[in-house]
């Protein structure tokens, strides 16, 4: 068995009944914020894509996972214990911010559920970044690691209760609020949200080249 892609689990941190953060040894593996890895239990033939949750300069790797009903890998990984091994392929993907834009452009990050993961990595990697983050969840307790974001930049949209900053889906917020066409928009998570958000942003005059999407399912 290949061993150069094996990483040790450091901790499992439960954020809700179903969402958890796996912290793993980094072993020097480089990545760019926004990229994902293929993660599975060591020795298993099954793996899945997970966005890297931690920052580029952290000395560990983290991913934020939601256990999916009827899901295979998200259930297996939830049972991991510190000290156990996982295998990582990657990093992969192009859902990244070009270096020349990081400190000069303004960004709108829109994520549903665990689709907030790459934005967590952006914010940790680039502390100076000028962003607004729209996080869409059903209930307020799913505002994963809310304290890691600047409260003035973080807009929690809750569709199932009124505990967020905004009651309703992120797409509803988007329709009702201004987005200037020079904003770089990053959309991540559920396909339906991304599809709808694309159309709304187009109507607001944001050119397609400024809209980037990472579809989870």
């Amino acid at each position, binding site marked *: 068995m290949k061993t150069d892609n094996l990483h040790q689990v450091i901790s499992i941190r439960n954020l809700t009944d179903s969402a958890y953060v796996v912290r793993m040894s980094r072993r020097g593996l480089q990545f760019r914020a926004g990229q994902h890895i293929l993660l599975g239990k060591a020795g298993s033939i099954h793996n899945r*894509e997970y966005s890297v949750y931690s920052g580029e300069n952290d000395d560990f790797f983290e991913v934020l996972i939601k256990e999916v009903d009827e899901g295979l890998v998200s259930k297996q990984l939830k049972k991991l214990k510190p000290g156990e091994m996982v295998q990582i392929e990657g990093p*992969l*993907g*192009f859902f990244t911010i070009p270096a020349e834009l990081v400190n000069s452009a303004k960004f709108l990050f829109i994520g549903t559920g665990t689709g907030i993961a790459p934005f967590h990595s952006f914010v940790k990697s680039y502390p100076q970044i000028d962003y607004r983050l729209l996080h869409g969840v059903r209930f307020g307790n799913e505002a994963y690691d809310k304290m890691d974001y600047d409260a003035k930049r973080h807009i929690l949209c809750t569709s199932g209760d009124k505990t967020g900053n905004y009651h309703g889906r992120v797409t509803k917020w988007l329709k009702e609020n201004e987005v200037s066409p020079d904003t770089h928009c990053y959309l991540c998570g559920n*396909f339906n949200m*991304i*599809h709808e958000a*694309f159309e709304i942003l*187009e109507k607001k005059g944001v050119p*397609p*080249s400024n*809209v980037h*999407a990472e*579809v989870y399912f």
Partner: protein
Amino acid sequence: MKKIAFKTLGCRLNQYETDALASRFHAGSYEVVDFDEQADVYVVNTCTVTNQSDQKSRQTIHQARRRNNDALVVVTGCMANNYKESLLESKSINYVVDNERKSAIYSIIEEHYRGQVPDPEGFDADVFSYETATKTFHTRSMIKIQDGCDNFCTFCIIPKVRGRAVSRPKNEILDNIRQVLGHGFREVVLTGVNIGRYDSEGTNFEQLVESILELPGDFRLRISSIEPDGFSNRFLELFDHPKLTPHLHLCLQSGSEAVLLRMRRMYTAREFRQIAETLRSRYPNFNLTTDIIVGFPGESDDEFAQTVQMAKELRFSHIHTFKYSVRSGTRAERMPAQVSEKIKNQRSEIIRKIAIESKIAYFNSMLGSTQRMLVERITDSHTARGYGEHYIPIRIENAAHLSRNQFVNVRLESIYMAEEPEVIATIID
């Protein structure tokens, strides 16, 4: 002298690799014969991109075995990566060589004939160590610049069988092109799995193309299949250069934004349209060809109608239609709402009809114009056949005085209707 025969399935990259192997065997005193003939060695360079390609690959392996029960049958290509274990168990096959070690097939066969028992896994993995194909089946010289893909489209098995994206160093590519030009080739075709993502030591795809165009000599450069992501507008401007042929095979896959998102394609239909419009406004006759997948999981009638609309609107001169087929281990395999074969067949037929109509319309629009044709072969009945810079297939009757691999200026006169239509031309100088 031992006889060796090759059969290539699938993409241009496979074709390039077969050409390079054939050339190596030819230089090593093997006689390269047609696959239909009796040979001592058969090399089947397989494809696994759809169920159909799996089936064809298996049939070809059995054909090889039936042709000569004593022959060595070597199976390589993407099926060798995807189904290694089951192929190794097959009695019809002597050696299974994965993509990474394909270039070692010559050494494997040589060891075999020296009475050793070579283990293909024991050879070094190197996806670029092919020799320059001097003796090829084509007048176009394919140059491999890249291998593998990191896009991970949800339907696609390629990242699994070709691995992560790797780019060949620019200097090696330029040396290779100088060599083939020295051997007399007049057309260079860039190949790879996802060439627009070329990235080697700070050189990106557009910069590589610019460097190639600066090479001296009477040749032209063709970009083969490319994904509509990864390159910038600067690339589109390079078509101003007279050596760069005004043709792109730009893979659309679907005209529906929703389907493209579910496929995890890295561009939108709007962006695709924009690229086509930019090209056509700068170069009105620009030839666009494409691939379309019909019946992707969940593809609704409306979503398919958007593909139909785009196929009509963008006037592709050729559309390669694929019926979606489930590839094990891909995300799309786990998607709900798989589309029935019946609907896939219907949709494929609709696209096929549009493809023929738009091919004829494109050819018609080019009649009366001139092309620089590269003669690829002269048939027994003295018809010269080849392609113009726009990648239009051209035929010239009574052309016994022409020779293979010659550039000739022609005027396009009329359409030659056949299963694969061509354009009849006359020589103008």
